[in-house]
């Protein structure tokens, strides 16, 4: 080997070792620091697995799970059908569909005794909640790994309703969260600052007044103050204004104007992964939907294609008129306490045959 080749080989070896140690260290120490953006979810996890009366049913999704599914109601409806369950609401505001597999892995990894038997999953739109501010957050960086990045890239590539430059810009916007994910960027720093400046992050929250992870928006409003109250007031005002203008869109179930067919390959991929995670744990997955956003994923198409085993759709306005009654709404995207109660009852009733078919009760 010539001297020059030896130098190049040495440089190459050193570079490889640098990256190897860099990624190993980042992975090891990065995972040691909890996110400061997911305090509510972490608190719920602690409560779920700290309970003396173990839970066997969980609900995972966004605020439309958190604010809509009341475990106490769900359990009582099923108990009336002689199906004893103990359920917990793990819904977390802002949960994107891409985040769901990450959340499920996090949850089920902690269920060492495999007590969870049913996992209810509600998926938000695949292109929802991906604004620049969120992409820069620690929370997104936690799940935005290579696989998620490639899925996001595929989704953008397939979305021909957006201009090429727009798609390229959106793709570039998704590089920083990937970088933060693989390098564990600022995780220790964020954690440290949260310790020395408690309450610095927006995620500081408490499970007070929650029941099994659920808190209706009406109750949240009743006890809210300061910026939270202002935010809720604004939501109500916006909803009222839009309703008066008749500009409020009720969701994909109510309008056919949004074409989400381009999402199918990525959605199929995502659904398969969710099913694998849940079944790999020995549990059963149940997808459910009552969407408010026009861009919501087409789970019924997935069901027809045989990719989803259990789907409970509450979109049909004829079968579930109360879920399409504006009086039950709190704001444009959520039900209030009464709506949550109604939705949970419908959900539980629809689940009864599924539970029976799977030996969930007598």
């Amino acid at each position: 080997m010539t001297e020059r080749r030896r130098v190049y080989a040495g440089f190459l070896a050193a570079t490889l070792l640098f990256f190897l140690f860099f990624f190993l260290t980042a992975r090891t120490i990065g995972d040691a620091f909890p996110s400061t953006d997911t305090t509510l979810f972490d608190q719920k996890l602690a409560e779920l697995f700290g309970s003396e009366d173990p839970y066997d049913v969980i609900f995972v999704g966004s605020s439309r799970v958190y604010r809509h599914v009341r475990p106490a109601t769900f359990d009582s409806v099923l108990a009336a059908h002689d199906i004893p369950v103990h359920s917990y609401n793990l819904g977390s505001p802002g949960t994107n569909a891409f985040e769901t597999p990450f959340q499920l892995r996090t949850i089920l990894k902690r269920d060492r005794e495999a007590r969870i038997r049913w996992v209810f999953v509600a998926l938000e739109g695949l292109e929802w909640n991906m604004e620049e501010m969120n992409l820069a957050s620690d929370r997104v960086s936690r799940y935005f790994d290579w696989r998620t990045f490639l899925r996001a890239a595929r989704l953008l590539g397939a979305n021909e309703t957006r201009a090429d430059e727009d798609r390229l810009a959106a793709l570039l916007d998704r590089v920083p969260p990937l970088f933060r994910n693989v390098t564990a960027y600022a995780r220790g720093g964020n954690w440290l600052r949260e310790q020395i400046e408690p309450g610095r992050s927006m995620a500081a929250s408490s499970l007070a007044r929650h029941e099994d992870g659920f808190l209706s928006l009406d109750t949240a409003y009743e006890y809210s103050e300061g910026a939270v109250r202002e935010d809720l007031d604004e939501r109500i005002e916006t909803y009222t204004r839009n309703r008066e203008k008749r500009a409020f869109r009720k969701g994909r179930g109510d309008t056919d104007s949004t074409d989400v067919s381009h999402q199918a390959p990525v959605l199929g991929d995502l659904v398969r992964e969710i099913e694998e995670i849940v079944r790999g744990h020995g549990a059963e997955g149940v997808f459910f939907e009552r969407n408010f956003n026009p861009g919501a994923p087409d789970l019924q198409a997935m069901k027809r294609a045989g990719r989803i085993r259990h789907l409970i759709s509450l979109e049909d306005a004829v079968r579930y008129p109360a879920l399409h009654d504006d009086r039950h709404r709190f704001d444009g995207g959520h039900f209030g306490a009464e709506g949550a109660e109604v939705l949970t009852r419908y959900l539980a009733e629809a689940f009864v045959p599924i539970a029976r078919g799977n030996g969930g009760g007598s």
Partner: protein
Amino acid sequence: MIFTEFRFLAFFAVVLAVHWALPRNRPRKLWLLLASYAFYAAWDWRFLSLILGSTVLDYFVGRKLDEEGRSDRARKRWVSLSVVGNLGLLSAFKYFHFFADSALALLQALGFHADPLTLRIILPVGISFYTFQTMSYSLDIYRRKMRATHDILDLALFVGFFPQLVAGPIVRAREFIPQLARRRALSDVRFRPYLLLFLAGFFKKACVSDNIVGVVDRYFADPSSYDALSTWIAVLLYTIQIYCDFSGYSDIAIATAGFLGYTLCENFAFPYFSGSIQDLWRRWHISLSSWLRDYLYIPLGGSKGGKLFRYRNLMLTMLLGGLWHGAAWRFVIWGGLHGVSLVFHREFHEWMERRGWRVPSPAGIAITMWWFMLTLICFRSESWTNAYTTTRAYLLFESPGARSLPRELLAVIVLLGVMHAIAYRAPFRGLLERVPGPVFAMIVGLATAVILTFMATDVTPFIYFQF
């Protein structure tokens, strides 16, 4: 563009690659000058005209000063042009409001009616640094310590060289310009020490300073609401913050210049291990203190003459040094406090020497730190009331309020102190330079991951940018 931003790293990677790819010295210098101006323009391109103006002024002044047969009187006139030009620039952009507001306050105190001046002038980043650098060029030629450069490119690069452009170190022309004369060779660059220095600087700025700035700001916004222990915690943290911020920046500046083949002077030499206030000023912001010594203290008469004359020179130097840090009376007072302490130290030192006594080293370090921290209260406080409240709590351990900062911060302070002491002793520095390449690569990989993990998410501007 801040050194700890990723866009700077990308910028620097391009600059470095092109610099070493260029085969000849002149294109390299031209490339570095363009890169430096682009770096500065990333803040505000309009202020490039000030750097260009200062460069052209001192280029012509330098040529005139260097001409054979020029009388001393004529030379004095030419050097005055440089000093007046550069100080005029600095005064106009940095001290205009200070003098105008002070004059206004004085007139109003004397019962005169005076309208506030409405002219608002923005402070150009790094003006305090590059005006001092250009001035030193003309002053050194005037004192015949160096010859004028005939190549304006060399002078422009000396003034605008991006690693030290906005926050120092304040480089001397006679140390930097000769380095531009010959083509730098990549094989001459000692990458390992510069890489370690770069990582150390990055850690100090991005992982330490930026992470504690929030607590410090919170305390100093309302010191009257905190207890005495919180005052001590906040002052200690500010002492750490200002050191890590500024010395971290200097480390990165020296390292980036080093990667390009240029040597910049050391700016900090573990000042918090100083045994006396005099020692501290030999280790803290060395490029500024030596500049003030050479171009202000010594021309004023230095240590020659009687005691009172010496102390007058010292006080003037420190007061102006304080004013250099910012256009506010609190910086002047800060400089004055250091002037007084230096005078006191000299008297005390002589008194001790006459008796053959010495202050034990740990006691000297503790007293120096205690005093330095006390002066920093004035430096940091945003109002005289806040400065008074904090000083009282610091000195008397009185609690003006009931709120408290997290006590866990004491553990952070101790941990940082231990890390600093280990770095001071540097038991591994030589070892790191000797280990085989692959092992070094693994260590750097590990250190980079730790730094990225502990970086603060919100990048805050460097403290010294405003000085």
